[in-house]
């Protein structure tokens, strides 16, 4: 190839890249403009000014993404959004409620929100924009977000769970529907001295929650959505044989020194922020991980979709429940019954706002009218296509429905079980005690 040809190709590539970048930028701007227009439509006739205080769980880059979406609301309405992201949200929101000074909006766990709705502390959104809600969210989502027939909150993100793997390093069965095939492969690899799982659990005050979500997945795929819902609603005891089996299966398959990267102590001590990068390092230090849609984002730029990171649906112990999935999402609820708060919640639930959020490439959004091509990442597009518009039936259980006390006890219980597997009966009895 001559130098001239090379220069020509380079110029062509540069021009194409500029065109593509310009087109992506134009698309981003279009999504933002649509969000601004929607906020303006919602706030029509409202008094401009003032602020809405929002407390959420996302900080850092993820918190900034949310604030970008909220900035469009401010631009259209003049209502400032004062956002604080904190991992200690349960304690902060509870103390603010106890002090009689709750924030306008909080993005909290569904179980906690249900408890607050039961106490009559949350704003009823059905009356304010029930039509929008019915059009934008699936029946299951609306059902989980309702108490006494009234919708008390809106979902922004919606993260399903899957098995993440590195196509370059993974030696196990791809997209199996049978959980046992993963178990057999894990055992075979362990015999060869390879610990295949990445399952870091250190998340500060919330340590153990990734393990709790694995137990939830194992349970759902073995016993189905009805028992799963009963477990979440407190109708199936934590000391039942079914729950005990799910914990033990988690211990047998994932939390063995020979199965998990770094051994059990390593999994307990490794922070979740860095505990999953082993999937994509060269050489990879683990091969699979059962966790939420946020894993590539957590790993960061070294995760290249389709190249060194991909996923398949969580296989099932009972084939009848392969199509059932659980999801993780906080729910945004309003504490103050004023026009600005309701306008803000209506805005974040709207299709243009969630399309804009999707375009910022963080996580799948809950609004069912958001087109999958709004996600720049092919992985997020794949998740949206497979989970949000496929044959998946979502189920809600402890992961979403636990109240604050039971949720904390569950996470602590996972940590205790990992340290003392022989103490499982006492651990489960301790969690059960928090439901009484």
């Amino acid at each position, binding site marked *: 190839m001559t130098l001239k040809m090379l220069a020509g190709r380079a110029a062509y590539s540069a021009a194409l890249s500029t065109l593509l970048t310009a087109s992506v930028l134009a698309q981003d701007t279009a999504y933002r403009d649509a969000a601004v227009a929607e906020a303006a439509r919602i706030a029509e006739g409202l008094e401009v000014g003032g602020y809405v205080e929002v407390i959420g769980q996302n900080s850092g880059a993820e918190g900034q993404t949310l604030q970008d979406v909220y900035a469009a609301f401010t631009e259209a309405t003049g209502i400032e959004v004062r956002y604080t992201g904190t991992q200690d949200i349960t304690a902060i929101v*509870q103390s603010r409620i106890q002090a009689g000074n709750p924030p306008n909006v909080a993005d909290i766990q569904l179980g906690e929100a249900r408890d607050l709705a039961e106490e009559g502390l949350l704003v009823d959104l059905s009356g304010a924009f029930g039509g929008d809600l019915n059009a934008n969210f699936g029946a299951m989502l609306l059902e989980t977000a309702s108490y006494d027939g009234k919708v008390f909150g809106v979902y922004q993100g919606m993260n399903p769970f899957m098995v993440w793997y590195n196509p370059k390093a993974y030696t196990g069965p791809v997209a199996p529907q049978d959980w046992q095939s993963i178990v057999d492969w894990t055992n075979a690899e362990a015999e060869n001295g390879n610990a295949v799982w990445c399952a870091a659990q250190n998340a500060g*005050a919330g340590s153990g929650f990734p393990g709790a979500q694995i137990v939830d997945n194992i349970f759902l795929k073995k016993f189905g959505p009805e028992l799963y819902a009963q477990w979440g609603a407190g109708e199936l005891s934590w000391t039942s044989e079914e729950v005990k089996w799910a914990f033990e299966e988690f211990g047998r398959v994932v939390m063995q020194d020979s199965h998990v990267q770094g051994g059990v102590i390593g999994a307990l001590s490794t922070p979740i922020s860095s505990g999953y990068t082993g999937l994509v390092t060269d050489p990879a230090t683990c091969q699979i991980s059962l966790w939420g849609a946020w894993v590539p984002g957590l790993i960061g730029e070294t995760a290249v979709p389709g190249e060194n990171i991909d996923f398949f649906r969580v296989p099932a112990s009972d084939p009848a429940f392969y199509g059932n999935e659980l999801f993780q999402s906080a729910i945004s609820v309003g504490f103050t019954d004023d026009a600005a708060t309701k306008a803000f919640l209506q805005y974040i639930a709207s299709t243009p706002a969630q399309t804009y959020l999707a375009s910022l490439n963080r996580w799948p959004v809950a609004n069912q009218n958001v087109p999958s091509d709004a996600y720049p990442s092919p992985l997020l597009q794949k998740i949206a296509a497979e989970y949000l518009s496929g044959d998946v039936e979502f189920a809600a259980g402890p992961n979403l429905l636990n109240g*604050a006390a039971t949720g*904390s006890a569950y996470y602590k219980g996972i*940590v205790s079980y990992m340290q003392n597997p022989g103490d499982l009966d006492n651990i489960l009895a301790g969690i059960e005690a928090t439901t009484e």
Partner: protein
Amino acid sequence: MTDFLGIVLALIVLGAIGIPILVYLALGLGEVILTLVPAKAGQKLRPWVWLLLPVALAATILIFPVIVTLGTSMMDARSASFVGLDNYAWAFSGSMLGIVGNNIVWLIAFPIATLVLALFAATLFDKVRYEPLAMTIVILPTAISFTAGSVIWTQMYSFQPAGTPQIGTFNAFLGLFGINPVPWLIQPVVNNLSLIFIAVWLQLGIATLILSSAIKNVGSEMIEAARLDGASEWRVFFSIILPNILPSVLVVLTTMIIAALKVFDIVYVMTNGNFGTDVIANKLYYELFAANNLGHASAIAVILLFTALPIAFINIFQFRSEARS
């Protein structure tokens, strides 16, 4: 919608200007009333008039909450029904026993370790010319909050599985000698001692300072005389210095015991009570704000209060007797 900044400004104005004016007016009013009563009675009443505001303030912000907490400690989670002493029974049963046990470890190890190290440091510093420098180094951590100190020590104790690069200072150091890394915050017993060590590091400076000033007050003639009589340095320390600084030792000990009783920040930041490191104050926070169980939280608060009270009284009396002497 209220403006937060506006409220803060109003509170500053109220605190800095309004309250002094109100106090002045109240005392003036009291004096006017005193002029209306017979002189002898006025003299007897005057102290009470002047004490009225502080007593009312103490009653409002100290005694009233204690009474309310005593009440809520005998109610259920939402303070809806009376449950008698159930919450106290809970506080001494089940998982709470392990937590109380951890506090006992703190109560023993933390004050003793701090006291011994502070005595050691204060005595040795007294003998060297570069004492100010040594004292500055020991006292530096005191300037760091418990929370910030905990964040620093999280990095120091960081653990990665054996065979992977260690980013924690201690484990990287052990790695230099081919020793396997230690999960400082996870391994039972080691983790509690690791947390206690941070508290010692943070409090050693203030304890050394108190003991050092006490040592400097011990009469040099007495020490000289003992040395002339052939007493060894150990003998001088145990027979002359220690008996003379005993009141200060008691102050350090009681202050550290109270700190051990209410320890929260270090545990909350570093383990949040996981791995068998939970302590009473962290459990109180959990029950109040995570579990939303006011009954349990109040019972813990009352137990903490009544455990700390005798020690606080000893501390106060000790300070007073020192002031008198």
